[in-house]
Every structure is written in C-alpha cells, then in structure tokens.
C-alpha cells in the first residue's frame, strides 16, 4: 500500500465524477476513499480521493487527471493537511450498558444522534485514524451498522501551492 490523498478541483458539470472515477478504474488505480461536494464557488466541485499508488506513480495519476477537460487543478495533500471524515455508528446497547458506551464515545467527541431500545447511534467527525480507533473500541459491544463518508481534506494555510502540481505550461 502506498496511499496518497489527492484534492481535485473540477468544473461542476454532469458526468464529471464519472469521468474521474472511470479514469481511476480503467487505468488500474485503486481508490481507497472518495468524497465529492461543491466548493465556495458553486460552479466548481472538489473531489477528495485516497488512491493506492502501489502499481503506478502518483505523478502518472495526476497527469492522467489533468487530461480530463473538466479537471482544473490537482493537488497532492501532504501529511500536514487537515483531514476529516464523518462516521455514523449504530452500536448494540442494552439499557444498562448505555452510560458506559456513551461515556466511551465522548472520549472521541462522538455525539449521540439516536437512542433506541437496543441500540445507540453516534456521529463522529474526526481524523480517519481516530474513527478507526472508535470503531475498534465499539466492536466488543456489537456494531450493527456503520457508514463513513470518505475523508475530505484541505492543505493548511501557507501550505497551499507548495505541493500543487501545476499544469506543465512552458
């Protein structure tokens, strides 16, 4: 595994996600996670993608992305980037164990979003690593359902552009 996080700024047009995702599939780049949404400019969207570059260089991935007409900019985000992900987690919880589970979740700043007779549902926004830790901690109680958004990320102020691979324009 050789994971890289790419932040891809695209024109907000029909099919743009298919074009990007299709490119990854057909060139044999494995996607670990993918999140897409609009940016501060409604005509543009940002796709945040974690890609396994064991087979191909991240450089080649970026160059292929740049060939898509709707792709405006591709940045590789470094270790210092702010990376967050949302997880929803439904944990089996008999009434007597509820306080224990909730207090455990609080350590991770997870919020209770639903309580039922036999289960509690949490939401948690955190780094992918911490979400993983929360999941492992809840495992013994019984995880009924779990969903993650895929990470979104931004470079920290001042970092922007340093790792930006600008289009090669001579």
């Amino acid at each position, binding site marked *: 595994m050789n994971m890289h996080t790419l932040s891809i700024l695209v024109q907000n047009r029909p*099919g743009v996600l298919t074009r990007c995702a299709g490119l990854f599939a057909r060139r044999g780049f494995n996607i670990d996670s993918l999140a897409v949404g609009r940016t501060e400019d409604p005509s543009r969207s940002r796709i945040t993608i974690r890609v396994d570059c064991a087979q191909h260089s991240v450089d080649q991935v970026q160059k292929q992305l*740049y060939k898509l007409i709707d*792709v405006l900019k591709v940045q590789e985000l470094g270790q210092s980037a702010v990376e967050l992900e949302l997880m929803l987690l439904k944990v089996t919880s008999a009434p007597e164990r509820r306080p224990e589970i909730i207090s455990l979740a609080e350590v991770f700043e997870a919020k209770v979003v639903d309580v039922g007779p036999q289960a509690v549902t949490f939401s948690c926004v955190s780094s992918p690593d911490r979400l993983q830790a929360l999941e492992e901690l809840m495992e013994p109680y019984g995880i009924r359902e779990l969903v993650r958004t895929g990470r979104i990320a931004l470079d920290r102020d001042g970092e922007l552009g340093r790792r930006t691979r600008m289009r090669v324009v001579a």
Partner: protein
Amino acid sequence: MDSETPITGAEAIIRCLEAEGVTDVFGLPGGAILPLYDAWAACDHTIRHYLVRHEQGAGHMAQGYARATGKVGVAIATSGPGATNLVTPIADAYLDSTPIVCITGQVQTHLIGTDAFQEADIQGITMPIVKHSWLVDDVRDLPRVFKEAFHIARTGRPGPVLIDVPKDVQLTPFAFSYPKQVDIPGYKPSKHGHPRQIIQAAEAILAAERPTFYVGGGAVHSGVSQEDLIRVADAAQMPVVTTLQAKGAFPDSHPLCIGLPGMHGSKAANWAMNRCDLLIACGARFDDRVTGKLDAFAPGAKVIHMDVDPAEIDKNRQAQIPIVGSLEHVIPKLADSLESRANGGPPRAAEWLATVREWKREHPFRYRNTEPLKPEFVIERLRELTRGQDVIWTTGVGQHQMWAAQYLEIDLPRRWLTSGGAGTMGYGVPAAIGAKVGRPDAIVINIDGDGCFQMTMQELATARMYGIAAIHVVVNNGWLGMVRQWQELFHDERFSETLFEPDLPDYVKLAESFGIPGFRCEQTGEVDVAITAALECGQPCVIDARVDHEEKVYPMVPAGAPSAEMIDIAWAEDDNAWVEEGV
C-alpha cells in the same frame, strides 16, 4: 454567422460546421437525428454529405479524411445502434490521436433514462475513449459546444470528441450566434517546450556516442515540418527509426532512415534502439509493439522524450530529459540549437551510424519470390508502378499491413493511414474512401486483407455512389493470416477458426455487383496487368490478389520478448548470429 431570426438546433449544427470550415461529412440518418437531416435538405449550405452503409464506415471515413488532410473529420449517426456503431472508430481515433467530431442524435430529453426506443447512453459508453464529450440539453449551448469540440479535437494531442444532441434540442428555435473565441479553463495544452530542456537535449545529442532518433505518430499529427525533422537528424548524423504511425513523417528514402522498429520491424531498427546510448523519442509513446519486453528495452539508453501530452512522459519509460510541448514548436528550436552547437567537425556518432547502416544493408526485409504468388511481391509491384506519384496508402490490420509497412517507401507525411494502437480490422476500405474525398487529386490505394475487407466492404456502395475512386487491393490468402501465423508459431499449428476460404466471396464478382471493376491476379506475371488496369480505370475498383497462405511476416519479435531478439527464417547467411550473441 449570426442569425437575426431564430433558427432550429438542427440548422444551428449546420451553421456551426460551416463556421468551422467543414466541407465534407460522413453519416447515416435515423429517427433521433432526422431533424438535422431535414435541415440538411432544407437549408442553403455547401457542405457535402456522404451517405455510408454502416456508421462504422462513417467514423473511419472521417478518420481517413482527417489523417490525409490534417483537418478535423466529421461523422454523423443516429441514437442507439447508430451511435454504438461509431464506438470502434472512436476507440481507434483515441488510440491513434486522430481528430474527429462525432455528432449523434439522442432520444428526446424527457425520454432520456426511460429505455426509450433506440436509446443508448452513448456519452457514458464512450467516456473512456473520447478526448471529451457533451450531451447538449439546452439548445443555447450548441454553438459553444461545437466551438469547444473542434478546438479540443484538433489542438494539443488530437483526438475524438462526441456531441450527443437530443431530438427535441435539434427542433428548438433560438437566436444563433457562433462564438469567436473559446475559453476552456481546464484545457490549456502546452505549446513551446522548456527552452532550457531543449538546450540540454541538444547538448546530450551532440555528446552521445550512439544516439537514435525514435520518431512516432506525433510527428505527423503535430504538423511539424519534415524539413525541421531532417535538420535535427542531419545535425547529429544519427539513425532515424519511424514507428508504424510515423511512416512518411521522415522520408523512407533518406540515407539516415532505417525505418520500422518493433514486432515486425527491421533488425537494424530494433538493434539501433536497443544498443543506443541516447534515445530521442519524438511524439512516440513506447508502445509495447515497439518495445517488446519493456525491462529489456534499450537497456543502456538515456531518454529524451518530446511530447505534447505530459502523461506520456514517464508512463512506460522514464525520461531523463522530458520536453512537453508541440513538436511543431519544439523540433525547429531543437534543430536551431543543434546547428548552433555543432562545431563542424565529424560527429561523435559517425562510427555508430556506420554500424547501423551496415546492419540495414545486411538485413533488409526479404522474401523468397517463388510461386505461389507472394504478398510481398504484390506490394512491391504496387510500390514500383506508382513510384514518383502522389499516393496515399491505407491498410487493414494484420499480415498485409505489416508487409505494406515493410515494403512500401513513403517519403511524405499523411500518405500512410493505418490503424496502429487499436488494430482495427476493417479500417482500410472506409479510411481510403475518406482519404480520397479529402484528397481527390491523390491516388489512394487500400492494401487490405481478405478478413479485414469483409468487415467493411459494404462501403464499396458508398464509393460507387459518389465515384470515389480509391483502389482496394485484397491481399487474399483465404485466412485470418496473422492469427494463423501465431497459431503456426506459438500454438502447435492448431489452426483454430482462422480459415476463410479465398473464394468466399468471389471478390471480382462482388466488385461487379457493386457496379465497379474487379481484377484478379494469381501469378507473378498477372500482377502488373491487374495493377495497371486498376490505376487506369478511373473508378473505385477491387484487385483480388490470390497469395500464398503459408507466407509469414518476418522478422518477428514474439509478444513479451525483448525486441532485440527477433525470429526469422533461416537464410543462407547466418543472420541470426546477433540473436545468439544476446544483443
């Protein structure tokens, strides 16, 4: 081009084509594209439409037209199966970087997604094989989309684009105005190449002891002048290999040219690439048919890689000196740089050049010219009987294509149209028709195989209807010859499903049924008669050349083998010595 009164989307498409200078299009109507065809008949315009017999033919004709003329080819089809029949030409154009605009009808916008009659998501189907595509759901976008489509198709690394236009959009009136400029924020192809890199390349070339100039199809598509390519080669006095797509970009008859590398390339070309200490790639993409086993390819070479597409740099082979830019701009600057640095003394590479020339002299392409009639002989006679004339050659894919590449001599670009990357059987007939439409002054000869010819031969009807006088030579061995060759060499002669039979159909009668002449030759003595008759008849025609089905294409690099290790038939001299030495 602006209209005072509103016009329909259909008429707007015609005005867009006019605005782009289009004079010829190839297509076939159907339900969802009917409004466009209605406007075609109703409006005043001067664009000629060629009615094809199968949409694949329209696509390949547009390709042949584009590659022969350097202009953008246009193909039109209806929705559903009409559009999917364009998929093969689009894939072919994508791999060989041919600029074509495909216009497809689509079901009405309110029916999209309902599995309506003749509905196919052609934009989705073609997404991996287009440079870009559009589904136009608002008629007001049509002019901008056409402007962008032609711009994207022809600039940078050229390629196919697709415009899908729903029927109701074609029928909607609007105030037409064609944009003068194109503004695509995500599309800025590199042009000039980094000056420092170009200087570095020139210095490396002059310092090299064994440089080899590896010229690819980009040298044709970019429009770089042949004179500038020759200046580069001359300044360094280095051998030049031209890939299948580059045949003619650099003159075959030039003393520095050693021709075709790769799977069926010459020994000289493959050895030159493998033994060089500097490989100067120019619009070439290190395709597996050229390199053979990649790890073993040109093991001692540093690489200069010039290409307009940055994604080609380091894709298959690491480049020490990458230059991203249009060859049209890069090559003249490289030539200037080389010429200003050459000190006038003998080039360092003189000894190397002598060695490569010796290889070329000792190992030409050759065959034993005995009966039954040899396909190589037919191609040599075609070459000789048209020598000195302006000939555009097209081919299908397979043995005949490789023999044509080996035995034809082509000295100018855009005279050799062949399906390389995709290897599309059936390319030859329609590509020849498209080329002849674009270049009616040239002799156009399609060297085809019997397997390929049968895939698109219905376009002889198109040729006959419009009097498009390309000559179609069926190199007829009655087999899927290249597959047969692999079966013979690598599959213990199990000839599984490759026999076609030379009389099925009777190609002379077939030609006659289309109302065009057919000529047959079965022996060496009959070849010139048939070719001369075909050249003189002034109409589209077919030559059925019955050739030896056991003849194979040599030399050959087996798939996945190092390209320096070619197999060949045993000649009197021991010319496989190099292989055993392990070049």
